[in-house]
C-alpha cells in the first residue's frame, strides 16, 4: 500500500456534483459540498435521504453515477476503498469476529505493512479506556465497548477523513450521550476531519461544527447548528431540526424594515432580516419555546405579537410543560413553557394567549398548494432507523 495517508498533503474534502442513481431512484442528486479540513461535519437527515449513500461514496464502497470526490486537489472518486486515505466507523461496527480486539485494531496498520503495531494499538486502546481488553474477542464486549473498538480501529490509521455511519445508533441513551462527548473530545484531540451521518438532530447539534440537513438526495440547509436552528431555510428544516409552529400566511411586502404578513385574517410582522420571502404565500414560523402563554391579551408585553386560543393539552415533562393551543381557525400551536416556577400552569380547556417577540419569528417561502404543515408535522425522528 503506497502513496497513502500520512505523506500526502491533506486538504478540504469536496464533493462536486455528486450523483448516485439506483435504477430509476436517485439517491443522491447533484450534491456539491465542501467540508473544511479538521472540522466535525454532520450529515443530518431522515432515513432514505441519501446521507449514507453519500458517505459510502466518500469511502469508496459505492461508486458515484457522476460527479467527483476531491480531497485537497486530488480526485479520489475512482479509487478503490483500500486505496483511499479515508476510514469508516460502520453502523453495525463490522468488527472481525475471528480476531481479537487487538488484531481488529491492528488490522489496518498490518495491511499497510506498518510495524511494530503494539505501541500504537495500545495507545489507542487506552484512549478509549479499553486497556487490557486486547486479547478479548468482540463477542465478549458490550455494545458500547464494541463501538469504541470500531472507532479506534478506524482512527488508528490516522485517516485524512474519518467517516462515521450512525455509529451511536445501537447504544442506549445514557451511553450515547457519553459517547457523543467522547467523540467530540477525540476529534478535537486528533484534529482529523470527521464526517458524521445521523438521523438524530440532537446528536448532530451536540457534536458538529457544521450541519448539512439532507432531504431527497440534496442539501436543504448547511450551517452552524445554532444558525440553522434559529433561522431555518425551509419548512422541512424547521420541522426536522427541532420543532416549529408554522402558520400558512400571505406576505404583503416590506415596509420600514419589517415584512407585513396576514395569517387567517390577523396581521403580523417579521423583521426583514428574518424573512426569506417578502410577498406571496409564506410560512410564519415560531419555535415552541419562543412562545409564552398568558391568560389574556392585556398581559402581552409591548412590542410582542399574539394569537388567542384554547389549551387542548398540557404535558408536564419536568423541565418544561408542553401545551397545545388550538387557535380560533383550528391550527394547533405547541408551546414549551420552562418550569422556572415563576408562572402558574395553565389548565386544559381554559382560554389563553400565546405571544412572541417578532424578532424570534421567521418567514419562509411556501408553495401555494402547501397545506398548513403544523397539522401533519413530522414527529421527532429520534429512534427511527435508516
Amino acid at each position, binding site marked *: *500500500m503506497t502513496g*497513502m495517508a500520512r505523506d500526502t498533503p491533506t486538504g478540504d474534502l469536496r464533493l462536486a456534483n455528486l450523483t448516485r442513481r439506483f435504477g430509476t431512484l436517485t439517491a443522491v442528486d447533484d450534491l456539491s459540498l465542501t467540508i473544511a479540513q479538521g472540522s466535525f461535519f454532520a450529515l443530518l437527515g431522515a432515513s432514505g435521504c441519501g446521507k449514507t449513500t453519500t458517505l459510502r461514496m466518500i*469511502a*469508496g*464502497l459505492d461508486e458515484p453515477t457522476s460527479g467527483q470526490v476531491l480531497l485537497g486537489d486530488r480526485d479520489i472518486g475512482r479509487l*478503490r*476503498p*483500500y486505496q483511499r486515505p*479515508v*476510514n*469508516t466507523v*460502520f453502523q*453495525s461496527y*463490522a*468488527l*472481525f*469476529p*475471528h480476531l481479537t480486539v487487538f488484531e481488529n485494531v491492528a*488490522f*489496518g496498520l498490518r*495491511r*499497510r505493512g506498518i510495524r511494530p503495531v503494539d505501541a500504537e494499538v495500545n495507545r489507542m486502546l487506552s484512549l478509549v479506556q479499553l486497556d487490557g481488553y486486547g486479547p478479548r474477542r468482540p463477542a465478549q464486549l458490550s455494545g458500547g465497548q464494541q463501538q469504541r473498538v470500531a472507532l479506534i*480501529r*478506524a482512527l488508528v*490509521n490516522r485517516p485524512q477523513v474519518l467517516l462515521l455511519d450512525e455509529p451511536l445508533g445501537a447504544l442506549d441513551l445514557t451511553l450515547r450521550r457519553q459517547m457523543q462527548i467522547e467523540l467530540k473530545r477525540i476529534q478535537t484531540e486528533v484534529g482529523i476531519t470527521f464526517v458524521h451521518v445521523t438521523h438524530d438532530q440532537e446528536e448532530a447539534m451536540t457534536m458538529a461544527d457544521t450541519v448539512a440537513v439532507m432531504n431527497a438526495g440534496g442539501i436543504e440547509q448547511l450551517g452552524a447548528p445554532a444558525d440553522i436552528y434559529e433561522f431555518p431555510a425551509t419548512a422541512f428544516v424547521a420541522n426536522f431540526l427541532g420543532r416549529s409552529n408554522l402558520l400558512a400566511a400571505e406576505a404583503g411586502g416590506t415596509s420600514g424594515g419589517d415584512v407585513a404578513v396576514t395569517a387567517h385574517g390577523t396581521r403580523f410582522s417579521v423583521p426583514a432580516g428574518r424573512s426569506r420571502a417578502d410577498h406571496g404565500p409564506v410560512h410564519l414560523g415560531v419555535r415552541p419555546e419562543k412562545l409564552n402563554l398568558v391568560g389574556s391579551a392585556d398581559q402581552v408585553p409591548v412590542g410582542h405579537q399574539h394569537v388567542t386560543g384554547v389549551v387542548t393539552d398540557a404535558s408536564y415533562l419536568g423541565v418544561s410543560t408542553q401545551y397545545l393551543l388550538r387557535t380560533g381557525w383550528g391550527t394547533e400551536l405547541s408551546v414549551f413553557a420552562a418550569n422556572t416556577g415563576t408562572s402558574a400552569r395553565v389548565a386544559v380547556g381554559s382560554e389563553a394567549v400565546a405571544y412572541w417577540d417578532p424578532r424570534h419569528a421567521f418567514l419562509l417561502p411556501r408553495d401555494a398548494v402547501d397545506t398548513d404543515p403544523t397539522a401533519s408535522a413530522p414527529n421527532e425522528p429520534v429512534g427511527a432507523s435508516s
Partner: protein
Amino acid sequence: MTLLAPTGPGQPPPAPPAARSGSRRLLPYLLVLPGVAWLLVFFGVPLGQLAAASLYDPSGSLSTGYAMTWAVGNYADVLQAYWPQFLRSFGYAALALLLALLLGYPLAYAIAQKAGRWKNLLLVCVVAPMFTSFLVRTLAWKTILSDNGVLVGLLRDVHLLAPDGRLLATPFAVVLGLTYTFLPFLVLPLYASLERLDRRLLEAASDLYASPVRAFRRVTLPLSMPGLVAGALLFFIPASGDYINAELLGTPNEYMVGNVVDSAFLVRLDYPQGAALSVLLMVAILAMVFGWLRGAGTEAVR
C-alpha cells in the same frame, strides 16, 4: 441417526394424555430408544464382531470354522502385506481433496455470495447427480475416459497425451473419480459457511486497506473455516475408504484399502484378514481426524 425421524415430534407420545410425571420423565428416553436399539443391533454388535474376527486364528477357513486365538499378529501381517494400498488410499483421498477444494471453494463461494436468484437452482445442480446411483455415474466416467472415447482422442490430437497414452486405468482416473463422487459433500457445508458470511465485514476489510486478495485471506477464509473443516472431513473419510472408483477406473496397481477388504471378504474369504484391514482403516481415519481437529483447533468446528 436419520432413523430417529419416524419417532420425532410428529408422532403422538406413547404415554396416555393423563400421564403421570414419572412416564413424562421417561418420554425422551423412549423417543431415542428405537434409534439406539437400531444402532446397537446393526452397528454396535457387528462392529464388535468385526473386531473379534480380526483376532481369529488365520489358519482357519469358512468351511472349517475359525478359532478365537487373540491373533494380534493379523494386524502386523496385513500391514506388511498391504501398506502400499493404505498409503495409496490416503494419498489418493488427499489428492482428490485438494482437487475438490480447488473446484469446490470457488463454486461454493459463487453460489453463496454471487448467485443471487440463481442460488437455489445452482444448489440443486450440485446435488442433482446424487439422484442417480454413484455406480452408474462411475460407469459413465469409464465411458468418458475410455481409450476410444472422444476425450482421449482429442487429447491425443493436441499432443497433451502420447499417441498410446490413456486416461482410463491410471491413478489420474481414480483421483478424478473420487473428486467427482464426493465433491457435493465438500461443497454443501462450505456453502453453508460462506452464505452466513457478512458482506459488511468485507467492506470493513476493504476500508482498512485490504486488497481483495488480502481480504479473502484475512477475513473470508478464516470465517469459512468451520464449513471447510466439516466439508473436508465429509469428503476425506468416505474417499479414503472407497473402492468402486479404483475398481472401475483403475487397475490392481491403483487398488486402495477398500479393494483389499472387498477381496478379502468376498474373493479370498479370509475373514480375519478382512476384519483386521477394516479395523485398521477405521482406526487410522479416526486418528487422523482427531489429530487434525486438535491441530485446526476445535473452535473452528462450532
